[in-house]
């Protein structure tokens, strides 16, 4: 059995529907119209230990609902989640000892006091022994380059520094799984690259299984091979990133400018879409052909 | 003037948007009025007062609940302070009107918008209560008229005070401590914490010349007739004088604040 097993996971929310207008506003005071939204609809997947998996989809696709169920915050309506032998919701307290979570838009650090103080509190929350704590702190400080910011109050940190501290905070208790919910949101390009580097490093060195969500395709490209795409609560794709790229980027449009149009040869796997005075638009199948080959001909 | 009117309207719309919040606020007013009337009737069951009957007291309690947002000491949201601090004042300085009056009317319209949403339900509720707890009719048409006038003037007094406190708290650079200490005493002296006729006479004698009793106490006592007519007229005259004094002081401090703010580069 794999490390994380998700089978036929579903979750439905009731949403109050409000019509505009004063009359309807009063009506909804008495009787509320609710509609059901299937946030997560029959999703299954497996993840192996040490993998980095990106979970992607548009806003409202059900990403964070799935993450919330995987972290034991929400109870699934139906279906099954087994992570490392635990059912996240039913064995919440035992289970969460093994996971670390970073919500890009929320902070687990204390705003007004130095970063290290927050670490110490987390150390107590997770009952980490003094020796283990010192060891891990040193390791994380080296890995995430935190030396200069450990004594600084969080409010004085830049967003990139803060995110590094957040990631470190979620690793203090040496979790087996790390959930990263939009870890690079709002960061500038350089910080993004840094954070990605650290995530990869952590995965490699500590063999932590990482599940991340992001809207940033470059994030995903840099970090992982495997992606799970979800839309309207359903799983749309699960596999290698290259494969999906190939699938959708199979054909490329090529515009070629000529000084003078001579006879256009009939090229294999290529369709002529448009033909103008000195310009042709070609549709090239990239799997079987390359652009340079087309131009040569 | 149109700008102020549309600001008033948008405040009202915002208030209407948050219906549950308005409802919660309304129930606070209901329950608080009930709790206070229980406490005060307990005292009246032990003894009675010569110049302040239980009916007059109930008028006081319920009018206070109904017009709470008009006269409450610190209804302002500290918007001005934060605007000066975060540099948003630069926007305001670009607008084609006097800054003091813009903020003054903003605060005033916030009070009226908030009051419009809750005063009527509270009044209806209070009128329907059983005898001994209910809001009775004003003693005469004249007193009703004077009530409306003095309540309106009272809102000008409180806004004048609010402007001064806000400006001062800019200098002390904090908006929780000094301001709230002041407002606590103001609640006591304006009749928000306890109807003024129930305070010791010595305190009321001192308080007579201060502006605080003119905020709401005057209006409520006019309504219930616990203050004699001649005194009411004198007090309304005092209201007008105080309004001018407060605005004058406020404008002076505001000027200082703005010079300081622009020096800071805010």
């Amino acid at each position, binding site marked *: 059995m794999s490390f994380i097993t998700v089978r036929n996971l579903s979750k439905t929310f009731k949403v109050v529907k409000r019509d505009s207008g004063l009359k309807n506003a009063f009506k909804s005071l008495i009787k509320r119209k609710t509609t059901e939204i299937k946030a997560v609809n029959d999703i299954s997947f497996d993840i192996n230990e040490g993998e980095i998996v990106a979970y992607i989809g548009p806003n409202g696709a059900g990403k964070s609902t799935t993450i919330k169920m995987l972290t034991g915050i929400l109870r699934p309506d139906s279906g099954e989640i087994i992570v490392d032998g635990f059912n996240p919701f039913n064995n919440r307290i035992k289970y969460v000892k093994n996971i670390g979570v970073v919500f890009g838009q929320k902070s687990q650090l204390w705003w007004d006091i130095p970063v290290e103080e927050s670490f110490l509190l987390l150390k107590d929350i997770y009952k980490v022994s003094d020796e283990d704590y010192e060891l891990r702190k040193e390791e994380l400080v080296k890995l995430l380059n935190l030396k200069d910011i450990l004594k600084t109050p969080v409010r004085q940190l830049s967003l990139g520094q803060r995110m590094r501290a957040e990631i470190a905070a979620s690793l203090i208790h040496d979790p087996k799984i790390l959930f990263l919910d939009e870890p690079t949101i709002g960061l500038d390009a350089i910080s993004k690259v840094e954070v990605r580097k650290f995530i990869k490093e952590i995965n490699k060195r500590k063999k932590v299984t990482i599940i991340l969500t992001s809207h940033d395709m470059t994030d995903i490209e840099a970090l992982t091979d495997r992606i799970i795409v979800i839309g309207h609560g359903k799983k749309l794709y699960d596999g290698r990133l290259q494969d999906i790229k190939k699938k959708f980027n199979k054909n490329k449009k090529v515009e070629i400018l000529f000084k003078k149009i001579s006879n256009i040869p009939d090229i294999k796997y290529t369709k002529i879409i448009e033909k103008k005075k000195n310009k042709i638009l070609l549709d090239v199948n990239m799997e079987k052909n390359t652009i340079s080959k087309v131009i040569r001909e | 003037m149109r700008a102020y009117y549309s600001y008033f309207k948008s405040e009202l719309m915002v208030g209407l948007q948050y219906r549950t*919040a308005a409802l919660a606020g309304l*129930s606070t007013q209901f329950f608080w009025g009930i709790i206070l009337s229980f406490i005060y009737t307990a005292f009246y069951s032990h003894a009675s007062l010569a110049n302040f009957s239980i009916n007059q007291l109930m008028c006081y309690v319920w009018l206070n609940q109904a017009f709470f947002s008009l006269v409450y000491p610190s209804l302002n949201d500290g918007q001005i302070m934060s605007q000066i601090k975060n540099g948003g004042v630069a926007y305001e300085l670009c607008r084609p009107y006097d800054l003091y009056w813009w903020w003054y009317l903003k605060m005033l319209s916030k009070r009226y918008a908030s009051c419009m949403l809750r005063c009527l339900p509270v009044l209806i509720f209070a009128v329907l209560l059983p005898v001994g707890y209910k809001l009775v009719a004003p003693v005469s048409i004249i007193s009703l008229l004077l009530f409306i006038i003095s309540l309106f003037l009272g809102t000008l007094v409180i806004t004048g005070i609010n402007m001064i406190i806000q400006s001062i708290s800019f200098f002390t650079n904090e908006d929780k401590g*000094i301001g709230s200490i002041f407002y606590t005493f103001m609640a006591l002296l304006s009749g928000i914490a306890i109807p003024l006729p129930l305070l010791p006479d010595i305190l009321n004698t001192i308080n007579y010349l201060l502006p605080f009793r003119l905020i709401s106490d005057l209006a409520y006592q006019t309504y219930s007739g616990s203050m004699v007519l001649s005194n009411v007229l004198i007090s309304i005259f005092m209201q007008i004088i105080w309004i001018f004094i407060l605005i004058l002081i406020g404008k002076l401090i505001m000027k200082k604040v703005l010079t300081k703010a622009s020096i800071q580069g805010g």
Partner: protein
Amino acid sequence: MKLIKNYLSMHLKVSLEYKSSFILSCISQAIYMLVELFTIYALFLKFKLLNTFDINEMLLGFSTIWLGYSLAELFARGFDHFDKLIVRGDFDLLLIRPRSIFIQIFGSDICYEKFGRTLCALLIYIYSASKVITNLTLLKISLLITMVIGCFILIISLFIIGASFCFVTVQGIEAINIITNGTKQVAEYPLSIYKKPVRMFFTFVIPIVLINYYPISYLTDKTGNILYVFMPLVTIISFIISEYIFHIGMKKYCSTGS
């Protein structure tokens, strides 16, 4: 235990980051309470009731409720302002930690600004108790302690019930706040001034009499019934009820989300 200590010290550090503002709010909170006390005194003065009611007994009742209330505000602000925890989504962060939710909510906010008020109430409490009690026994001392604890527990229970409403609607907390504040307001006065229905309410619905009215009559030797000494502990029942309600709310939250 170590965790609680850590929470306490963390919040103290936060408060001390803004020293002058912290001290000023401490003072202003205490002044608020004293003004409240003054209005009560003024009422008794006005109605010439100071002969019928013993002023020290009144002070004792007043300071009991304020001491319990301030302590609850100090240590249980996480419940008192639970709506913020839900709105900001920080409640989710508590759920991913391997510790009891209750301890974490207590630890999420500790409002040291209420310290000024607490200290002030404590001084009045000790002063009035020393005036009221003529022969101090061990039982009376323990009663003085359990009164405060009982009041603390009762107010916290109300906070927790209010917090449970937040799982349904965030605005719900205001409705419960009225009840909490209203209880405090009513209990500031000696309960014997009220008519029977009001007294009944505060006996059977919100049992404030257990921590205030009856224990004081034991302290002043109006009754020798030893049962009165243990009365404040009955509030533990209200705590259990509130905890139960909170868990129902949390279950709903976990199955519906925010």
